Structure formats: structure tokens, C-alpha cells
């Protein structure tokens, strides 16, 4: 199934000196690379690196305001020079597209079948019945077992993973030579992500497709692509076979990226001593969650969002709740904060029960329990200045004099590593990382004992994420904070947490010290989760074997 890498394969798509600009702003600068027939090439970069712009240029989907220079050669033609009328027959037939967010990639008022016929028509079959047969075959090919039912369904009736299979099916149906996949799995749960990537790899070899994979995930690129192009700020940092770039990165940026990817650096932040004592605790736990259940009534049936979950957390430690969507991790965090009431069980913080208190008693308790939200782009009021945002909790709790509050604001803002002149700005003038630091500063001004961090870095780039994690560790050290870390990212959890609870469908699957769970998972589901992480280590060892420059693909069922 794996073809040995040979240098003689012809170039299918050749990008030479591509530049793209909007107005006066250059978003891609002089990018060059070549995609060989039957190969996979990954464009790696963070937001603003220009990777999606390059993908759009290849697909001819750049907005009309874009100015381009350079050449994209495909079948002896420069794609950049083609008018829309000439380009259109290439779309779908020669170049297919798999988008990032499957939930928004299909027209909500049309059935899957209606979409599929748009693709099937490009095969020039005779009649709708022949098209239907081709559609059903393709839906089965992408692993959808009931093609007739899928054909009749509307997009909102399918899950994210199924929609992405449908979209891959729509892309491969007209038998294109190249597929451009723009972050095809970043909106999906980790186990689904692995299945989708496996599917793409399998289709690539069975249909002899070339793949242009756009991703922010270095480990994923190393596992799935033959060669990589690393981009930053619109410029190519380095290009080469993925094993070489991965094992011996030549640019500073790739080295930084490699250093900041959690799955490659599980022990970056926690000291050996801390890891050794991860599971131990002295005295009464700070948080005690005992047999907590929360059931939601959806009319037709009951959903056990949290089902008999217990854990405890010592002061000054970090506990992580991990799970895929629907695992109940966010509901559990809400219960802990007193934002929701459990149907059974009890939660105590510092020996005090969270539920069954008066509103004012709950308010006092919340002073010690602060929340940092997932998305710093929506959790800060855009009309407020940073100073007012950070000071708001102090104003609400009427703490100290005006001057004392201002002092605390300055203290908090420097504690999270921001300079004080940011205080006069509004959120729009801040980067994502700066915004999340502001959100953390806001949570810190009340000097809480504990922070609940709900996916605090999932909206951020890996290099920014590493900075935030570093700041969180420094704060924990300095103020003795206790963290509850909610995340779907297992590699990140391994970096930051002392102990972990693995949740699935509201149930506790397994819990214990992080190293123990990650090295010796007892439960099949935990093993499956761990195997679904893009396998950087497997990639490294495979790359080390002579004769195979292409990294081994994880075997599919």
C-alpha cells in the first residue's frame, strides 16, 4: 500500500514565486513548491501564515480584490491567468476541495443527494439513475454504510464526522487528480479525526490522488504527508521531505514550532519531582466531587450529561477533564462553579458545599473560583478598555478603594506578562494571546484560590498556546493556584495536568496521575484516544528506517 518515495515522479502542481496581496497588504510572498503526482504535500503554518490563501489560489477561489503574481502550473497552464469561465471546468473535475468546517460546508436547505448530483454530473454519465449509482458507490467508499439514507438526509441530520465523509465523497466523486484539504479535521473530535485522515490516506492510494493538505499541526503533517512546506507570515520558512524537516528542521521557526507542539514535548513544563508526586495529596482535598449526576430532559428522552462522576483535587494541583464532545466535561465544570445544580451527588470546595446555598453565599464562594473561557475573541466586551475589563470583578465585589483596585489591576496585568500600556486599549487592538492573558488577569484580580480553565488555548495557535501555558505555570507557582483544566486535547493535558479524568458520554472512564494514564491506560477507550493523537513518535521511528522516506500510515480497518 505504501509506495516508496521516488524522486522521479512528475510534478502535477507547481507553484513558483506566488505572491498574493489585498490592497497594500501582502499575505503570501514569493512562495514556491511542487506537488508530485500521487504524493501528499502539507502546508504548515499558524493563523496568518498564508496557507489558506495559497489553497484558495490553487482552487481559483481568491476574492476579486486579490492581486497575484508568480505562477501556479497545472497541466501546462498557469492557473492564475485563467478566467473564471476557463477555470470552472477544472474545479471538481481536476481539483477537488475538502473544507475545514464540515458543519458549514453544505447548504442547509438542500439534501446530501442534491449536493452529490452536482458532483456526479461532472462524470458525464447518462441520466440521473447512473449518477445515483455512482453516488451510492462513493458514499460507501467513504465509509457511510447506509448510502440511500444519507442521500435523502439534510446536512443537519448528520454528525460532523459523517458530514466530513460526505464532503470527501463529493470531492473524490468526479475523480480529480488533486485534492486540496484545508484543515479537514480541525473541527472534529480526535477519534473521528483519525478515521477521516485514515480515509483520506486510503483514498489517495486507491484512487491515485495527490493531496495538498493545509494544517497547523506539525505532528499531523509529519504523519500524513510526504513533504512539507512551513509558512510564517506569508513566507516559506523551509521545504523538504517531511521526515527531514521533522527530524532536522533547518529554520528557527520550525524548531520553535517543534518545541511548542505539546505532543512532541510532554514533559516541557512539569518538573520530574512534580510528576513523581502527581497522584499524592496531603490533607483534605480542595475540591471534592462525589457521585455527581446531571440529567437533561430533551422532551423525547433523558440525556445523562454527567453520570455518577467523582474526583478530588488537592490544593495547588492541576486536574484535567478530558473527553470528546458530549462527554460532559463542560457540564461538570459548570456544576463545580455553581452555574448549574446536580440532580444527585455533592460538590465541596474547601470543605464547603457548592449547592443548596443562598445566592449571596454562592457569590462569596465564587470569589475563590474563577473561570477562564474558551474563546478570548468573544469573552471580552469589545466596547470596554482592558483596564475596565480587568477591574470589573473588583468593582462588582466592591473591594478596597479606587486606588487599591487600580493597584490590583496593575498587579494582575503584569502577573500575566502583559505591559501596562495595554490597559488603555480595547480588545480589538490585541492579539489572541494577549486577549487570553487579559481574560486570565480578569480572573486573577479577586485573588481566587482556583481557576477553572475551559479549553483556554483551543482558539489559539500552538506557539501562542505555549506562552499561555507557561504563564499559567508561573502563576500557579507564585500564587499556589489550583486548576481545573477542561480540554479535548490530550497532548496538552499531558503537558499541564497532574491528574486526569477521562470522560465519555457523561461517564468516568478512567482517572489517575497523568503519566500513569498516558503510559498504561487500562481502558480501551483511553487507548483509542491516545492512539488517535497524530503519532509523532511513530513518525520519527518510521522515518529513521532506511528505504522509506514516506512516513508509515496508521493501518486502517
Amino acid at each position: 500500500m505504501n509506495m516508496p518515495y521516488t524522486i522521479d515522479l512528475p510534478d502535477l502542481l507547481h507553484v513558483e514565486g506566488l505572491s498574493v496581496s489585498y490592497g497594500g497588504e501582502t499575505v503570501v510572498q514569493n512562495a514556491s513548491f511542487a506537488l508530485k503526482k500521487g504524493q501528499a504535500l502539507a502546508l504548515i503554518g499558524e493563523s496568518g501564515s498564508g496557507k489558506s490563501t495559497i489553497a484558495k489560489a490553487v482552487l481559483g477561489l481568491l476574492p476579486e480584490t486579490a492581486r497575484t503574481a508568480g505562477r501556479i502550473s497545472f497541466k501546462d497552464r498557469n492557473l492564475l491567468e485563467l478566467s473564471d469561465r476557463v477555470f470552472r471546468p477544472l474545479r471538481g473535475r481536476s481539483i477537488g476541495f475538502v473544507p475545514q468546517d464540515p458543519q458549514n460546508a453544505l447548504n442547509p436547505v438542500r439534501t446530501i443527494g442534491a449536493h452529490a448530483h452536482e458532483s456526479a454530473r461532472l462524470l458525464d454519465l447518462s441520466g440521473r439513475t447512473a449518477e445515483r449509482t455512482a453516488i451510492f458507490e462513493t458514499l460507501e467508499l467513504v465509509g457511510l454504510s447506509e448510502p440511500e439514507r444519507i442521500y435523502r438526509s439534510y446536512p443537519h441530520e448528520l454528525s460532523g464526522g459523517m458530514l466530513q465523509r460526505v464532503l470527501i465523497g463529493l470531492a473524490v466523486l468526479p475523480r480529480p487528480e488533486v485534492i486540496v484539504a484545508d484543515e479537514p479535521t480541525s473541527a472534529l473530535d480526535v477519534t473521528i479525526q483519525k478515521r477521516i485522515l485514515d480515509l483520506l490516506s486510503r483514498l489517495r492510494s486507491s484512487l491515485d490522488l495527490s493531496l495538498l493538505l493545509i494544517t497547523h499541526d506539525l505532528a499531523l503533517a509529519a504523519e500524513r504527508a510526504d513533504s512539507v512546506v512551513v509558512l510564517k507570515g506569508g513566507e516559506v520558512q523551509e521545504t523538504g521531505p517531511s521526515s527531514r524537516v521533522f527530524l532536522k528542521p533547518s529554520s528557527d521557526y520550525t524548531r520553535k514550532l517543534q518545541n511548542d507542539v505539546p505532543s512532541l514535548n510532554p514533559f516541557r513544563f512539569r518538573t520530574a519531582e512534580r510528576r513523581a508526586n502527581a497522584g499524592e495529596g496531603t490533607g483534605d482535598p480542595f475540591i471534592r466531587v462525589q457521585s455527581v449526576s446531571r440529567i437533561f430532559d430533551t422532551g423525547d428522552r433523558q440525556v445523562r450529561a454527567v453520570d455518577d462522576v467523582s474526583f478530588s483535587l488537592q490544593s495547588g494541583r492541576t486536574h484535567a477533564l478530558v473527553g470528546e464532545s458530549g462527554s460532559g466535561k463542560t457540564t461538570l465544570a459548570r456544576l463545580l462553579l455553581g452555574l448549574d445544580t446536580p440532580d444527585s451527588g455533592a460538590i465541596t470546595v474547601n470543605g464547603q458545599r457548592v449547592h443548596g446555598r443562598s445566592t449571596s453565599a454562592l457569590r462569596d464562594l465564587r470569589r475563590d473560583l474563577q473561570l477562564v473561557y474558551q474563546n478570548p475573541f468573544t469573552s471580552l466586551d469589545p466596547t470596554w478598555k482592558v483596564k475596565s475589563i480587568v477591574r470589573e470583578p473588583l468593582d462588582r465585589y466592591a473591594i478596597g478603594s479606587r486606588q487599591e483596585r487600580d493597584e490590583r489591576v496593575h498587579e494582575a496585568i503584569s502577573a500575566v506578562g502583559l505591559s501596562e500600556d495595554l490597559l488603555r486599549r480595547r480588545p480589538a487592538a490585541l492579539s489572541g494571546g494577549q486577549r487570553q492573558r487579559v481574560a486570565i488577569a480578569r480572573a486573577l484580580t479577586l485573588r481566587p484560590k482556583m481557576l477553572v480553565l475551559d479549553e483556554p488555548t483551543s482558539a489559539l495557535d500552538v506557539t501562542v498556546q505555549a506562552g499561555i501555558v507557561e504563564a499559567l505555570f508561573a502563576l500557579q507557582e507564585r500564587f499556589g493556584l489550583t486548576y481545573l483544566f477542561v480540554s479535548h486535547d490530550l497532548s496538552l493535558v499531558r503537558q499541564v495536568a497532574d491528574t486526569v479524568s477521562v470522560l465519555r458520554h457523561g461517564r468516568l472512564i478512567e482517572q489517575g496521575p497523568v503519566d500513569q494514564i498516558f503510559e498504561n491506560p487500562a481502558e480501551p477507550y483511553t487507548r483509542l484516544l491516545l492512539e488517535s493523537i497524530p503519532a509523532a513518535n511513530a513518525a520519527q521511528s518510521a522515518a529513521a528506517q532506511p528505504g522509506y522516506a514516506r512516513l508509515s500510515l496508521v493501518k486502517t480497518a
Partner: protein
Amino acid sequence: MNHRSNYIGYAIARLAQSIVVIALAYTFTFLIINVLPGDPITNMLLDPENGFSPADIEPIIAYYGLDKPVLEQLWIALSRFVVGDLGISLRSNLPVSGLVLSALPSTLVLALSALAVALVVAFLLAFASQNLPPRYGQGLLRLLPAASLSVPAFIIGIFLIQIFAFQFGLFRITSPNSFAATAFAAIALGIPVSAQIAEVLIANLDHEARQEYFSVARSRGLSRFELFAHHQFRPSSLPVVTMIALAIGELLGGSLITESIFGRTGIGSLVQGAVSSQDYPVIQAVVSLAAAVFVIVNLIADLVYPLLDPRLRTRNRGREPLADEPLVDTEAVAK
């Protein structure tokens, strides 16, 4: 999970709601009229200017139960309203229902042709806003809805009469029910409504063009027209159903003014006469009728919407997708 029975349940509930709202509207109008000092009908009857003799007054008082408490009067009126008896006009001594029925067709013709004008103009504007190349004045065209929104219908009406009746003689205001006169009245009434619909439609079309599924559809090599029709226009047009329902109310209200400008008889002239002669049963009937039309049109919009938007057909939106592939790969576990 059964979509059809869900829908029928929903339809019945909405229908019941609508009946309650219409009855409440009737009650509310009745009470407002009666909150005024004294009882309006008696006041009017006793006004010597109106020249009723005591012999005339007695049967009227008995008919409406005017010597009974207000709530009892309401009950009498409501029980008649339910069976379609709207009372007797005080001025003409004819049944109100007959007066309304004879005035209604002319107003309906005007309002419905205005709606047709509004829809045609709005759809043409919206189509052009997306498909006209910028150099052919697309920008100017996009300003049109906002501009015509700021001109009231009666001004448009006066202009149309001035230009097309007096200057070009395309129609005569002395025969207001002719085809041409009706057409121009419909244009006067429909233009402001078309501007509203066009604004929403253009905004939605722009929004759809930015959706990911629009560019994904483009990547499947669809023609410009297919893209527009299936992936831009179709999802954009759903809110227009609601817009139409709201516009009907506006068209009814606006038709009263337009009718008087174009000299048409209809509900407008009926209500005008009733107000000036304090003919309360007629006022009560027209207000209740307007409320009923509004409620019924909105009911229809609500019932049609789920048929157009598949997302509203399933009750547990997003909660229960078809069973996905099993999360735990049996093979992976066995290893």
C-alpha cells in the same frame, strides 16, 4: 422522531393560538371603545344632532344590551362575532358584515396587486445586486431600496397621478377602478414594501455568498447561475416568507391612504365614513378584521416555514444525528 405528527401537533397549537389572539383583539377593541366616558353608542344616539327618536333608540339599546353591564355587552357582542354577525351599522341600518364584504374585494385587489409589484421589484433588484457587473451601476442600484424606503407611499401616489394621469393621460382619476388606475395605485403602494423586502434579500444574498458552503459549492465547478439559484438565493429567500406576512399588514394599512388618494372605494372609505359619523359597530368590525387578517397571514407564514426549511422539521435539532460510526473501533480495542 415522527416528523409528520410533530408538524400536525405544531399546526394545531398555532391554529388554537391564532383563534385566541383574534378573540382577544376583538375584546380589546371593544373595551377601548367602552373605556371612553359614557357608553359611546348611547351617547351618539342621544345626541340631538343625529335626530334619533326614542322609538328608534329602544330596539337598538335592546339589540346591543346597552342597559346591561359592559362585560355582559361584551359577551353578547363576542357570541355574535363568533358566528359572523358584526352588528348593525348605526348610520345606514344595514348589517355591518354586508358593508365589509362589499368593500373588501376592491381593497384586496389593491393590496394583492401591490404585493405582486413589491415581490417582482424586490426580486429583480436582488438579482441585479448580485449579478450586475459593478461597472453597470451595481453600487447605485444597491442604494435604491434605502432611498425609496424614505419616501412615503402617498407621495409616490401623488407623483404617479401627477405624471401618468395628468401629464401622459395613461389613466383617468375619474374612473379609479380601471385596470390602469389600479395598476398605478398598486405601484404606489407596493414600492415602499418592495424596498423593505429587497433590503433584507440583498443583505441575505451577501451573507450567503460569504458562507463556506457557497465557496465549497463553487469548488464543485457549478455555473454562476446554479450557484446563485441553489446556494445563494434559495437559503436567502426563507426570511422573505416572514417579510411577506408582515408586509400584508402594512399593505392593508397603506391601502386606506392610497385608496383615498386614488379615489377608490373600499375598506378605507368605509372606515373613514364610520369614524366621521361615529358608527362604532363598523369601526369595531374593521379593526377586528384587520387584526384577523394579520393573525391569519402570520399563521400561514409559520405553517409554511417548516416546509421550506428542513432544519425546522426535526424537533431535536443537532441533538440526535443519525448514529455515527461506533466510536470505539472494535479492532483497535482487540489489539
